[in-house]
């Protein structure tokens, strides 16, 4: 073959391949449009867990994506397999799990934007509104209305239900209830003549004890909230009467004296009173409480610490304090959501309902996951068991009863990640001690937040 002919053939092959791929794109677009339509025609026998809308003998692949790790996904897999074996035996289930949280949040947007999402996805409260606002998640209201889960919504945690709402519609079915509390090193604590913190303690009480517990740079009294997670600081500023945004999320409230006071209090712990560790001491030390450097540490109620501590010292849990504007406690969690372009939405909803409202399944999830599951009546399965339970005698009171009473939903606005970047860039100045005056930082953040909200809301109007 002469060179000219060879190049001509090559060119033809290229055009052919391009044409073929174009035709395939057309096919996909059609499928995406039809998948938006929802139908609730009951054509098949209904069961307690299926609507009768989908043929039980349907074939195909049902895709699920989760951030749960190797040891955590086991319980979910057991329930998922039982569901499909019983109700849709010809469906092949494709489980994509063991993706770390950060990687999950990279992969999911690509799959959603690429138009080929899984049928059911794990969703975090920090992301739900962002995805819902750009129409990437399915509104669950029609499903809930047609096939109401047992006890919905009154038996589910109000804060969790609210966290997964956008424009008053439900976009995620909450599966857990993560709350914040204080972990106390009792060996350090017994050296001071003080009672353990209670829910009636004020922030001043905590500071007073923190000072007593601090010993130079060897031991720090307090470690409240991580700078890496803005949500972990929100309960503190609400206790002071401050806030991030106004009620309809159109204006910043970083200029409120109460907001400024809260950030000043948090910053003074580190730089003025020196009762909290400075960044150099906590960086590269992921668990300072476990290392025995912190006397009172804020963290979530997952009793994972128990495994790490291995009886290094005596410890227990205690409630977070109240501010002069009331007591607010951090609550958060995750949910299951159905992508807008999922191929099997009805089955996805049925499976979600089966996993998260069926007491038998919630028992399995709670016991093996060591977390409070979606229904309040099943709380006991989320309580620590055995040896670790003895260390945390007030676990239920701290992480369940008080959270239930005082839990506050963090306002995770749509495009929260973008805003959190702005937040972090500014508050880092306080964290690293480059600026000691919280007012200056808060006012700067106030302007930046207002600009951000304005741009988000103007796009919404368009």
């Amino acid at each position, binding site marked *: 073959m002469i*060179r000219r002919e060879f190049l001509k053939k090559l060119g033809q092959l290229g055009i052919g391949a391009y044409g073929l791929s174009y035709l395939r794109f057309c096919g996909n677009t059609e499928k995406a449009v039809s998948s938006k339509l929802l139908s609730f025609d009951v054509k098949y026998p209904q069961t307690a867990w299926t609507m009768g809308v989908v043929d039980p003998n349907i074939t195909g692949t049902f895709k699920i994506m989760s951030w749960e790790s190797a040891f955590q996904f086991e319980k979910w897999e057991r329930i998922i397999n039982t569901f499909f074996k019983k109700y849709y035996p010809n469906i092949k289930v494709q489980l994509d799990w063991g993706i770390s949280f950060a*990687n999950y949040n990279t*992969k999911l947007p*690509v799959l959603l934007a690429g138009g080929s999402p899984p049928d059911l996805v794990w969703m975090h409260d920090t992301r739900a509104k962002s995805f819902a606002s750009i129409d990437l998640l399915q509104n669950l209201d029609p499903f809930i209305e047609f096939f109401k889960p047992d006890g919905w919504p009154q038996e589910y945690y109000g804060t969790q239900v609210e966290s997964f709402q956008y424009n008053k519609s439900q976009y995620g079915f909450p599966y857990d209830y993560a709350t914040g509390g204080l972990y106390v090193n009792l060996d350090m604590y017994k050296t001071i003549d003080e009672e353990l913190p209670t829910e009636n303690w004020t922030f001043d009480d905590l500071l007073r004890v923190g000072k007593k517990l601090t010993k130079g740079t060897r031991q720090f009294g307090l470690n409240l909230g991580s700078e890496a997670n803005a949500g972990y600081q929100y309960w503190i500023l609400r206790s002071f009467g401050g806030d991030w945004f106004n009620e309809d999320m159109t204006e910043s409230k970083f200029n409120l004296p109460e907001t400024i006071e809260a950030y000043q209090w948090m910053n003074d712990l580190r730089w003025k009173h020196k009762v909290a560790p400075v960044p150099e001491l906590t960086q590269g030390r992921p668990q300072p409480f476990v290392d025995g450097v912190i006397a009172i540490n804020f963290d979530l109620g997952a009793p994972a610490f128990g*495994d790490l501590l291995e009886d290094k010292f005596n410890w227990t849990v205690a409630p977070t304090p109240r501010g002069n504007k009331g007591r607010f406690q951090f609550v958060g969690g995750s949910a299951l959501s159905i992508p807008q372009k999922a191929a099997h939405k009805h089955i996805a909803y049925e499976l979600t309902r089966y996993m998260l409202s069926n007491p038998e399944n919630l028992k399995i999830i709670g016991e093996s996951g060591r977390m409070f599951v979606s229904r309040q009546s099943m709380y006991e399965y989320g309580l620590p068991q055995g040896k670790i339970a003895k260390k945390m005698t007030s676990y239920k009171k701290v992480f369940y009863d008080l959270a239930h009473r005082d839990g506050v939903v963090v306002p995770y606005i749509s495009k929260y990640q973008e805003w959190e970047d702005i937040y972090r860039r500014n508050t880092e100045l306080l964290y690293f001690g480059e600026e000691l005056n919280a007012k200056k930082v808060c006012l700067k953040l106030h302007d930046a937040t207002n600009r951000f909200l304005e741009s988000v809301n103007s796009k919404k109007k368009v």
Partner: protein
Amino acid sequence: MLNKNTQNYIANFITYTILIISSMAVILPFVWMIFSSFKTAGEIWTFPPVFMPKKFQWSNYIDAWNALPFDRFLFNSIFVTVCVTVGQLFTCSFGGYAFARLRFPGRDKLFLMYLATMMIPFPVLMIPLFIIMQSLGWTDTLKSLIVPCLFSAWGTFLMRQFMMGIPRALEDAAKIDGCNYWQLYWKIIVPQCKPVFATLGIFTFMGTWNNFFWPLIMINTIGKKTLPLGLVMFQTRIAAETPWHLIMAASCATVLPILILFVIGQKYYVKGVVTSGLKG
């Protein structure tokens, strides 16, 4: 005044000290990984960090291996890496040969355009590439990890530059003897290009072996995951719950085959890097 021997001795001492310290900085994380693979979950988090475990937990290796199909991950990684490396050597050498030796209209402009693709960051290409894979029905297949990686502008550039240095007289003589283009490529050019093949092979092998991001997007089922994806399957959302001791054990076990391969092929690796003037 120091005599020559003493001067040499001091110079050697300084050189070796610097080299040993630099080597330590590179080796230490590996040694740390090995010792951590024998620790308990609690020991991993201890501060100040302890180097040696109190008691060697050999069971970490068994637990890690039983928890996930690492043999499958290893096979997938080897399969993908070998296919991509061999494939890239072919496509890049073909491309390089065409750009270096063949004369056709728009050759240099085409080459510049091809080179310009190196300037586009991968995240920009990710979604279009994902859609192409999806439209071909290749998502969640090893094909999706192999085919898009078979072509490399950087590799083609490397090949072209090297091939441009081969004397034309060799080709002319072969043409007179009746060689066609394929024979010219295979019998004349390829034997001259062994060093650049080694270089490209090594860098492609390493890049593909460590590739994480693209497989993360494309692969959904456990049986098709590669080693880098498999290793992060232990990670949990709450850092304290991540079994780092098992991750370390799995990392040690899976790094072994590639380490053996490196020891065997070390000569070629060094030669390849030195020949191309590239630093590893």
